[in-house]
């Protein structure tokens, strides 16, 4: 008899992803879905989709979903969680959505200690709109609106969201992870599960920032993109726990 080691989770709808080859959205969606199933909260989950490559997330997660305006997902999630405090509410956002247009919304949801979980997909670029500079684009990194490389004097240095939100009292758990190797993927999954678990325990705002690739707009193959992330993004965005639930009184 064979024993199943890995099969597609029922937390995802039976629908192929539209994402580019090698795009880490596919991995991250799966981890979120698996976490909800393993915590047995899939039928209590309500997710909020962003604007960005993952705008169709409402077609992939096998739970109730709301599509939000660009950047507004934490406010939408706040509305949902205040109406249904017993449900597991999450937002799934990219770096344009969360770190640019939606910075006020994420900061204030975190400040209020809104009991939601935010999955922040940071790939240092704007994917869906064709590769423009993001607030998370590295100094020197080329993007279509920073064609000569991001200039620190002109456009500033990139924003470290996990560190920034960790200065607030509202967050109960913030961790930055990545998905460039199977070991990292397994660690990212544990972080996502912990974030949902911390929400279920009512401790406060939780976020997992996932350093991700965008092979298409970085102009690299999917495999090269993983290595570029490890060499360039991890030094600037160190992996690790920035707020631990054990610290929350």
């Amino acid at each position, binding site marked *: *008899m*064979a*024993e*199943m*080691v*890995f*099969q*597609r*989770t029922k937390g*995802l709808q039976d629908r*192929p*992803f539209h*994402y*580019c*080859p*090698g*795009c*880490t*959205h*596919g*991995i991250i969606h*799966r981890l979120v879905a698996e976490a909800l199933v393993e915590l047995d909260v899939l039928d209590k989950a309500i997710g909020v989709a962003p604007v960005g490559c993952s705008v169709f997330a409402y077609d992939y997660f096998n739970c109730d979903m709301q599509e939000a305006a660009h950047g507004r997902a934490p406010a939408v999630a706040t509305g949902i969680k205040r109406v249904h405090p017993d449900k597991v509410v999450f937002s799934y956002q990219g770096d344009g959505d969360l770190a640019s247009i939606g910075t006020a919304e994420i900061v204030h949801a975190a400040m209020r200690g809104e009991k939601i979980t935010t999955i922040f997909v940071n790939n240092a670029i704007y994917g869906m709109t064709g590769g423009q500079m993001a607030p998370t684009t590295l100094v020197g990194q080329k993007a279509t609106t920073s064609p000569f490389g991001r200039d620190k004097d002109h456009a500033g240095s990139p924003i470290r969201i996990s560190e920034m939100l960790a200065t607030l009292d509202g967050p109960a758990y913030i961790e930055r992870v990545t*998905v460039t*190797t*199977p070991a990292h*993927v*397994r660690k990212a999954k544990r972080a996502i599960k912990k974030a949902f678990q911390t929400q279920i325990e009512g401790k406060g705002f939780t976020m997992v920032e996932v350093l991700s690739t965008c*092979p298409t707009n970085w102009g690299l*193959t*999917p*495999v090269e993109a*993983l290595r570029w992330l490890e060499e360039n993004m991890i030094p600037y965005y160190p992996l690790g726990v920035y707020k631990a639930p054990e610290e929350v009184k």
Partner: protein
Amino acid sequence: MAKVRGKVTFKEHLCKGCELCTTVCPVDIVKMAKDRINTKGYHPATVDEMEKCIACGNCATICPDTVIQVERLRDND
């Protein structure tokens, strides 16, 4: 002592040829099938030397499109 053996199955029509799986196999048996293309036009990932598979699940873990299913086989399989 019995060796762990695995069986991986690929839903070839979902594969986008990203090759991430080929970089994480500890026994280096995951390859892109150069002799065929799927409906999307990619060479799908595949395993030819299944007897070497140890059911670690790394390939399925890194695959963004849940192309791969992994089973662990008992000795008499």
